């Protein structure tokens, strides 16, 4: 798909405009301990329960890198198909704030641990686009200022202070709020597959700084050709947006605001803005002129981070199958549609569920049951697939019962409802409720005869309206409480009514 076609245009008074979006995603590294201290990272602990002397910025305390966090960053970099930098450097970003006990944040400025990579983003329409990754670096999170504990004082909770974050910076490759949301979704999915971030946006494990600018059609293509940002409009950065919905809303609002500014004869100022999710608007926080001078310099308490080839190779070998590869395999191995495969790989747990259920079964049918009845039930109850009352094995077994004609697809719907409600095995339900499909042609034949005999008028109509056969099938099914094999019913009806059915 060409870039021009991708861009969604917004009509302004002076003609169409396009949006250009880049995201800086802060993803909390999944790790027991913090980036430079042994304190716990557990969410929801009592304020200041998870604070070491290092996290509190005590005099003479020194940071020591948590190797596991480094491993997680490398793992993520490999998952982003990115360059892993064998030498990276931790810098100090200096600024004063009460929730920053050291007076500086340890981050990576000039030499990040991960360089350029890419993410294939699946769009709702089934198409996909590539978003290029600029870099990924490791940094410390700050603590949290609590302004609502006392009318006159602010309290500080340092539980988050020093927690490891990966800042994943994309290039300005997204052209609509939908694409930005899809990118965020895909990134989250990828991190969860890798086990490097739990992706819990509600708990702040993932949040995004959104860079938005506008341009006239054609300008973006010039930017991509030349690499010169002069072709793009001035960008604004919307800080700390913490849900996919808000990311989309913030972009829509901000793009419209910038168009109105420019069309009103003004200029867009490069500035940092905040998204007010209650009002649905972005508000200026500080301009470029007011921007901090962070006085970055290499942290003299830490040596440059050097990675051995073996270390990287070992991590590479431990990387699980990622969503794109899994999706391709689901299409080729199980014969699923690209759409269904995409749906199933969107969460690692769903994909695993599917593969377990599909073992030795009709995979397409399993996929349909998951995407249909199972998802519907789970969504209704706000449950994740891990909490499903119907186990993968049970769902597989149920599909097996359909395949071997033990039950019909229609009966299976009822069986599924019972399985979901009780967690019981399908075979047991079928036996106890007497739902086994009747395949005995003698028994079905009797029912067929009864229906034919009782409805001569309908039989007469059949010659003109052959579709009426379905009505006969339904009547026979009713008589057998749905247990008759529908194919068998059909075959018998055709045999008995013969040429009385119209062409």
């Amino acid at each position, binding site marked *: 798909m060409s870039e021009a076609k991708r861009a969604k245009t917004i009509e302004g008074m002076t003609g169409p405009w396009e949006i250009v979006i880049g995201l800086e995603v802060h993803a909390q590294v999944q790790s027991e301990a913090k980036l430079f201290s042994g304190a716990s990272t557990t969410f929801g602990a009592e304020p200041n329960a998870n604070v070491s*002397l290092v996290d*509190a*910025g*005590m*005099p*003479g*305390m*020194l*940071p*020591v*890198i948590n190797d596991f966090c480094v491993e997680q960053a490398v793992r993520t970099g490999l998952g982003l198909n990115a360059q892993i930098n064998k030498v990276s450097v931790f810098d*100090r970003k*200096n600024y*004063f704030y*009460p929730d920053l*006990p*050291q*007076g*500086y944040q340890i981050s990576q400025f000039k030499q990040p641990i991960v360089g350029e990579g890419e993410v294939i983003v699946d769009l709702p329409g089934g198409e996909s686009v590539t978003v290029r990754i600029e870099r990924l670096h490791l940094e410390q999170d700050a603590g949290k200022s609590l302004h609502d504990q006392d009318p*006159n004082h602010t309290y*500080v909770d340092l539980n988050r202070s020093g927690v490891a974050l990966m800042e994943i910076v994309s290039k300005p490759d997204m052209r609509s709020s939908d694409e930005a949301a899809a990118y965020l979704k895909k990134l989250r999915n990828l991190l969860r597959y890798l086990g490097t971030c739990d992706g819990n946006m509600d708990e702040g494990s993932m949040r995004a700084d959104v860079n938005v600018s506008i341009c006239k059609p054609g300008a973006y293509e010039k930017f991509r050709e030349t690499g010169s940002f002069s072709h793009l409009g001035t960008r604004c950065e919307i800080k700390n947006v913490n849900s996919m919905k808000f990311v989309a809303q913030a972009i829509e609002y901000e793009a419209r605001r910038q168009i109105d500014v420019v069309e009103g004869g003004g200029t867009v100022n490069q500035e940092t803005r905040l998204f007010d999710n209650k009002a649905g608007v972005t508000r200026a926080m500080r301009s470029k002129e007011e921007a901090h*001078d962070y*006085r*970055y*310099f290499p942290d*003299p*308490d*830490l*040596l440059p981070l050097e990675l051995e080839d073996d270390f990287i190779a070992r991590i590479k070998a431990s990387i699980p199958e990622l969503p794109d590869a899994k999706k391709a395999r689901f299409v080729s191995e199980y014969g699923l549609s690209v759409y269904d495969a995409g749906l199933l790989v969107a969460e690692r747990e769903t994909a695993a569920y599917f593969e377990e259920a599909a073992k030795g079964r009709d995979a397409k049918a399993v996929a349909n049951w998951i995407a249909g009845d199972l998802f519907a039930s789970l969504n209704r109850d706000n449950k994740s697939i891990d909490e499903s009352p119907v186990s993968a094995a049970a769902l597989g077994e149920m599909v097996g019962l359909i395949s071997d004609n033990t039950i019909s697809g229609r009966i299976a719907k009822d069986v599924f409802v019972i399985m979901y409600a009780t967690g019981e095995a399908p075979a047991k339900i079928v036996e106890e409720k007497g739902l086994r499909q009747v395949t005995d042609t003698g028994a079905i034949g009797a029912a067929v005869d009864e229906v034919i005999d009782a409805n001569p008028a309908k039989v007469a109509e059949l010659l003109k309206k052959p579709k009426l056969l379905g009505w006969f099938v339904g009547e026979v099914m009713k008589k057998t409480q749905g247990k008759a094999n529908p194919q068998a019913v059909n075959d018998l009806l055709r045999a008995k009514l013969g040429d009385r059915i119209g062409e």
Partner: protein
Amino acid sequence: MSELLKMTMAEARDGLRAKAFSSAELTAAASSAVAEARPLNAFITETPEQAAEMAAASDAKLARGEGGALEGIPLGIKDLFCTKGVQTTAGSRILQGFKPVYESTITAKLWAAGGVMLGKLNLDEFAMGSSNETSYYGPAINPWRRGNDDTKLVPGGSSGGSSAAVAADLCFGATATDTGGSIRQPAAVTGTVGIKPTYGRCSRWGVVAFASSLDQAGPITRTVKDAAIMLREMCGYDPKDSTSVDMAVPDFEASCGGSVKGLRIGVPKEYRIEGVPEEVDHLWDQGIAWLKEAGAEIVEVSLPHTKYALPAYYIVAPAEASSNLSRYDGVKYGLRVDSDDLTTMYEQTRAAGFGREVQRRILIGTYVLSAGYYDAYYIKAQKVRTLIANDFTAAFEKCDVLLTPASPSPAFGIGEKSNDPISMYLNDVYTVTANLVGLPGIAVPAGLSKTGLPLGLQLIGRAFDEETLFRTGAVLERAANFTGKPGKWWA
């Protein structure tokens, strides 16, 4: 009792083991000497009760024939080392009343070796200074005087409390730290021995940071052998300090008796600095002659980038300090000058909490790290460090150890240089290069000035070759036969 305190650390150690006296006796003598010497203002905090308890515990161990290398020896601790439950000020008002809940790695090692803490020693505020005059707790006073002249002289800095206490026989040894010369220069002007080991030898964990890439702890003692004994207990790999080096710690004491026959002594020509008093160069020549007599080979070497060392130092050290001192913001511990407004609270706290020299260095450091200036200053200074390191690498191809003066002048009077920062900064001219490149350096007392004040010589060695410094230092010490002692005017 005070006769006991005139012993060297080695003699005290041997006497304790031989049960010639107890640690309780030694410690009581030291604690009363400390109290008596308050006019020297060497201590910020005295801990006689704690010292008595530690001495009793040491005596119990000694009685059982147990105990570490420093069992029962009274020591002074520079107030830059965090000591659990004992106020740690860094010589600054901003940390007044701060009692750490942790013990620095080095002091913990000293206590594990049996050392007894007499108290916390005065220093320049955050170790920034060469005269101990920037301390919020007032200057420490050098026990030495210019003959009968009662002008109060500085004990050097920043480890001025350490050098004064050791020179005045208040303790057998003291911890010190050296960022640009803060162990060697005060040792030189008080007639004591001070060694800054190779960067990475001693853990920085729990030592209040000044400039992280330069700071290194070491001992100040009365003899080279004592420095060897004490340094061995301070060194060692610490996983809590990422810049700590995982290397075996040699028996430094064993090096002290070695010969220098055939050892190549480098004499860097750039260390002959214009304007330095003749007696400093004269003593240097004397040192060269002593080592030659002892069988060493004298080689002239060149360290061409020496003149850039001090300017580079005064960019790197303030840059790191400006960031290291950001944590003293009135939010968590120490001084807070309250306000309804956060920025005002920061400003008031830091204005009241930091002295002029510290503020000056924070300003310099903030400036050189600012956008637009970073490359011209900080990056350039780092390049200078590389050039200086290359100088030393080339020099050490021709020689095994370098001999230089330790300080450009004997002790000066209080207030004589404090209004002229540049002339104050020049006190580190011989010592600062070793910090920039992480090399070990030792100052050994070698003679007296015309005014009767101690002067020292410095030896700079290859990285992790402290043994050659102890060997050569001991030879110098024997040749110089420095036996001078300050008169005990304070008691």
